């Protein structure tokens, strides 16, 4: 406030008659603001344009077959997207199946059950999980989680289901090393939990207390309040939050690269190593050139399309979710 009064005071004290106050600088300022805002638009368009440009040789060489081929042969220059696309979708789906119930549980705990004094520290702890860099999740997954997972889950489960049709295929680890599609899904689940949980919590907090109180007033249990009052009220935003988590899981790179095993073939078992679009790009990009580089760009293009559709739907459902 002082700066304004000063600058106005200075202008009048100096005796210079104040002309219509600096129209040009006003215009310049507004123009700069407008221009910066348009830059956001430009960057998004640039991302799409540059990736399509880089991917073009691969698309024109392989055509639609790029999507359905599972070849990835650098020697013969044959490339296909199928294993990476399936790996991406499988890991993200596993992340949702594991992560969403946990996120909802945390949101319900924070809004309904947590004693008042613990609410802030607990919420802070969960939100801090969102700030941990993804490469740290990768290291934790590979060096701490994977060995435990191999020993206490993969080996016993593999022994149990061996030979059983279908289940024996999906849950059998040929080499129980701890890394694989399911491990990636679990690490991704941990990474999306803080986002989904904190958005869901915000949405639940916005529901008027009167609704809750009246439900308790007619003798509802916490479960019934959650099931019949809170969830129906917030369902659209919760679905949006889940989609936002899905967008993150689809594009996550470093953590997945550490724990998915980076195999270029398809396997029916979720214990076996696989790869995602992002992990393959991270692994091969620096050594690639020519058609391989272009194929990696084409994978990036597919990732762009998939994640942006998901993110746009998510953002339509949750208009003003937190930055986190």
């Amino acid at each position, binding site marked *: 406030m002082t700066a304004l009064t000063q600058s106005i005071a200075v202008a009048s004290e100096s005796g210079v008659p104040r002309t219509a106050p600096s129209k040009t600088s006003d215009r310049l300022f507004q123009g700069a603001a407008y221009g910066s805002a348009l830059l956001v638009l430009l960057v998004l368009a640039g991302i799409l344009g540059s990736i399509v440009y880089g991917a073009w040789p691969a698309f024109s060489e392989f055509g639609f077959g790029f999507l359905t081929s599972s070849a990835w042969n650098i020697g013969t220059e044959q490339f296909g997207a199928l294993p990476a696309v399936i790996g991406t979708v499988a890991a993200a789906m596993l992340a949702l199946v594991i992560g969403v119930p*946990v996120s909802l549980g945390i949101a319900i705990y924070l809004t309904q059950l947590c004693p008042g004094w613990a609410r802030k520290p607990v919420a802070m702890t969960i939100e801090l999980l969102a700030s941990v860099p993804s490469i*740290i999740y990768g290291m934790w997954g590979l060096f701490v989680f994977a060995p435990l997972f191999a020993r206490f889950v993969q080996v016993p489960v593999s022994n149990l289901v061996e030979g059983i049709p279908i289940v024996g295929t999906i849950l059998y680890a040929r080499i129980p090393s701890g890394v694989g599609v399911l491990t990636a899904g679990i690490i991704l689940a941990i990474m999306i939990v803080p986002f989904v949980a904190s958005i869901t919590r915000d949405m639940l907090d916005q529901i008027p207390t009167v609704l809750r109180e009246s439900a308790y007033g007619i003798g509802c249990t916490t479960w019934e309040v959650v099931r019949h009052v809170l969830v129906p009220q917030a369902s659209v935003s919760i679905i949006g939050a889940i989609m936002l988590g899905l967008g993150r899981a689809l594009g996550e790179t470093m953590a997945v690269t550490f724990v998915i095993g980076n195999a270029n073939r398809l396997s029916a078992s979720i214990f076996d190593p696989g790869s995602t679009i992002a992990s393959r790009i991270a692994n091969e990009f620096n050594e690639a050139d020519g058609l391989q580089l272009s194929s990696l760009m084409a994978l990036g293009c597919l990732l762009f399309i998939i994640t*942006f559709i998901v993110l746009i739907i998510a953002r339509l459902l949750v208009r003003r979710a937190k930055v986190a």
Partner: protein
Amino acid sequence: MDASTPFATADHSPRASRVRSGRRIADRILILASTLATLLGIVVLGSILLMLIVEGVKGFTPTLLTAPTPGPGSEGGGIANAILGSLVMTFIGIVIATPVGLMAGTFLAEYGRTSKIADIIRFLNDVLLSAPSILIGLFVYTLMVRPMGTYSGWAGAVALAIIATPVIVRTTEDMLRLVPGQMREAGAALGAPRSLVIRAITWRAASAGIVTGIILALARIAGETAPLLFTALNNNSWFNANLLGGVPNLPVMIYQFALSPYPNWQSLAWAGALLITVTILALSVVARLVIKDQRAR
């Protein structure tokens, strides 16, 4: 739970409990499951921090902060070049992102509020906010690395700036919207042009929140690895202030060293991981505290 379910647990008569046992069980399961979910989150964060401290402290050698990264298989050395490179790129990234983010956020909050174009930009900014960082890496690779013919520190800084900008746009807009309209009207009534009102009144009133946005953006880009893989890459030499070549940086160093077969490299990776995580967690705690303060006002 007692405080929040005062009525549900009030009736303990045998008849009532028989009638309600199904509901009671469902209720107990919900309470147990959501408490366990929260505990799980806390345990995971604790486990990550424990791992970093146990492994990271081992890597703290006297030369960690003074010597550059050693060659493959050799002993000693430190991560000073990676820290310096990270600091420089992060700093340039923030210097590029701050004016753009600040002005774009100002446009959304002050000029564009309800216009169609502002709605579109607000929406796209939110989408960009959660866009996979690897795609931003590919974009900057095509934009800068390929035409220049070399991985470069500038490309790394631009990639980080693109990730930081939407965070700053978002927080700036949110914080400016919290400034009451009367303050702007008071400024306008004194005859100040709109740009002066914004700079001298609105920005000043929201300054703590805007700074928080910049801190959040810093925390966000400090640990980014994927976009740097294709832009700055890494090298083991001393960082010589030449941003036109590959620049050593912490995240890519951690990635390469952690997965290397050399024990010395691995322990340096852990020390770097501890350093970077503690820094980022500290930054986010500070940012969150300031933002809460601002919202409360």
